């Protein structure tokens, strides 16, 4: 079984990788400067010319692009190829404002699918596998990306898309799916449904799952691994750079290898824009050095994470990024304190509760309120009021210890919180609705 999809790249020496990145960067900057007036203006304003960029060491000289630039330039302002050369668009859900539309040439799609093939191979996938893709298909990159990667690897691909969970399980059983690709929240729901249908992991052949497109915790990973009897691998990506496959996990499960032959990562201080050394928490920035149609240079992802060049036992030399600790736009400021939903999720799972929860933030009499509804299992239910109230208080105490602010915890019935088939909605911030 092949351990790597592209050993030459994935295990390349640092020196060779730097050389490859530099060559590609220099070429890419010229391509963008000549074909994207929007970015040329940004470079001109900063007084940078393509000649100033001779290697990756000069990357920091380039101006940043942000989500706001993508909105300003919508739809064609950052396009670097004539539309006649483009064959596909993909788009974000547009939840934080105007949607982002990304363009692909056939070459872009080939490279993107190749990145996904690396991820599937790292999860143990070969042409002997049956790969069930339950990410949404359509404008969302999840379905098309993993579908393409699965084809490249030669897996028998089940293009299920999301939804109709009992049918997902029926296909999984009838066709012997061995790899599952979906969002972690949907994987948890599939696991729950499997057990509700009276099955156990012994009744299915799944061995691995490739889960991404939303933040999830180590605790949730363990819970999914147990309920489906698999090893769960993280995958990362964003529509702006291509889609899933920008980085992927190997069997060590200690962070995701970035396909840095295509995407050069940097970590910056989100306030000053200053580049921070490896090992420091900061905002992740990507420069696409191979994309033709939609090549974003120094794109600020708003994801907070850490980069590490520590040697990996899998043999890959590709730099690793930690699971994003939260997207800077997922962060809520409640009573002046920074709160990430993932912190709350960690406490819930540690305390033996399900990862099905809903966070509601509101403002009553000029003071922020934090209400967390959590499902309790039949075993956690007690006939005595006091027991349930004690459990609520105890959980609220544990969350207070983590966050520094007191929430109001509401234990609710199993399955009363709406399940997600795609990206889970975990936070309702009613304060925004009032403004």
């Amino acid at each position: 079984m092949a351990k790597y999809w592209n050993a030459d790249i994935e295990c390349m020496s640092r020196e060779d990788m730097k050389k490859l990145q530099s060559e590609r960067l220099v070429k890419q900057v010229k391509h963008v400067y000549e074909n994207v007036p929007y970015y040329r203006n940004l470079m001109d304003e900063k007084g940078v010319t393509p000649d100033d960029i001779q290697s990756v060491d000069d990357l920091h000289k380039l101006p940043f692009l942000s989500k706001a630039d993508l909105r300003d330039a919508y739809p064609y302002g950052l396009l670097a190829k004539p539309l006649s050369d483009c064959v596909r668009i993909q788009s974000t859900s547009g939840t934080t404002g105007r949607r982002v539309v990304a363009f692909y040439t056939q070459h872009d799609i080939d490279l993107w699918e190749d990145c996904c093939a690396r991820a599937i191979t790292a999860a143990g996938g070969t042409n002997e596998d049956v790969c069930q893709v339950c990410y949404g298909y359509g404008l969302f990159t999840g379905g098309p990306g993993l579908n393409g990667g699965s084809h490249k690897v030669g897996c028998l691909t089940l293009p299920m898309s999301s939804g109709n969970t009992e049918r997902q399980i029926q296909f999984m059983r009838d066709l012997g799916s061995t790899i599952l690709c979906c969002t972690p929240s949907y994987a948890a729901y599939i696991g729950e449904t499997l057990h509700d249908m009276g099955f156990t992991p012994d009744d299915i052949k799944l061995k691995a799952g490739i889960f991404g497109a939303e933040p999830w915790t180590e605790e949730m990973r363990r819970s999914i691994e147990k309920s489906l009897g698999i090893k769960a691998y993280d995958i990362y990506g964003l529509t702006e750079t291509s889609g899933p496959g920008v980085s992927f996990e190997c069997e060590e499960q200690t962070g995701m290898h970035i396909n840095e032959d295509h995407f050069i990562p940097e970590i910056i201080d989100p306030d000053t824009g200053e580049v921070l050394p490896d090992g420091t928490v900061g905002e992740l920035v990507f420069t696409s050095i191979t994309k033709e149609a939609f090549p974003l240079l120094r794109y600020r992802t708003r994801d907070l994470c850490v980069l590490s060049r520590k040697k990996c036992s899998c043999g890959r030399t590709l730099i690793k990024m930690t699971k994003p600790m939260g997207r800077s736009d997922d962060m809520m400021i409640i009573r002046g304190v920074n709160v990430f939903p993932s912190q709350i999720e960690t406490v819930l799972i540690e305390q033996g509760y399900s990862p099905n929860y809903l966070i509601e933030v509101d403002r009553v009499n000029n003071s922020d309120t934090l209400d967390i509804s959590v499902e309790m299992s039949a075993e956690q239910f007690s006939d005595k009021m006091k027991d349930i109230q004690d459990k609520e208080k105890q959980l609220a105490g544990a969350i207070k210890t983590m966050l520094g602010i007191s929430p109001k915890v509401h234990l609710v019935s199993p399955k009363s919180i709406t399940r997600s088939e795609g990206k889970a909605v975990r936070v309702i911030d009613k304060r925004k609705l009032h403004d």
Partner: protein
Amino acid sequence: MNSIQQISVFVENETGKLAELTRLIGDAGIDLCALSLADTRDFGILRIIVNKPEETCTLLSDNGWTFKITPVIGVKVPDVPGGVAGILAALSDANVNVEYMYAFVNRTPGEADTIFRVDDEETALAALQNAGIEILKPEEAYGI
């Protein structure tokens, strides 16, 4: 002896939830012999005694309700002033703590049945028997 099986159902504080639950039980031809609702701001617990406990559990479970079976003690209380007080005195003398209680109508005139949930069932039963208080058999409570 067998204790009475009370079914405690978790009910979210949402309009129509209680109606939905009792309709489900009624439509299955199950008779509610006794019931009591405990409520907080967020949720309620409906405690019921039915004529068909096992069938009810299957029904609730199939329909996704969260519930627990709780053993309780049923006592025949003389319908005279001081009737309940005498029973509580017997329990308190035996150091038994009552977690909750509720009364329900009985078919026999001159008698009101009361359900007790106690922290120590065995001691409670012995104390009640010593005091000459008549304990309800499960069949009597289920109205069979």
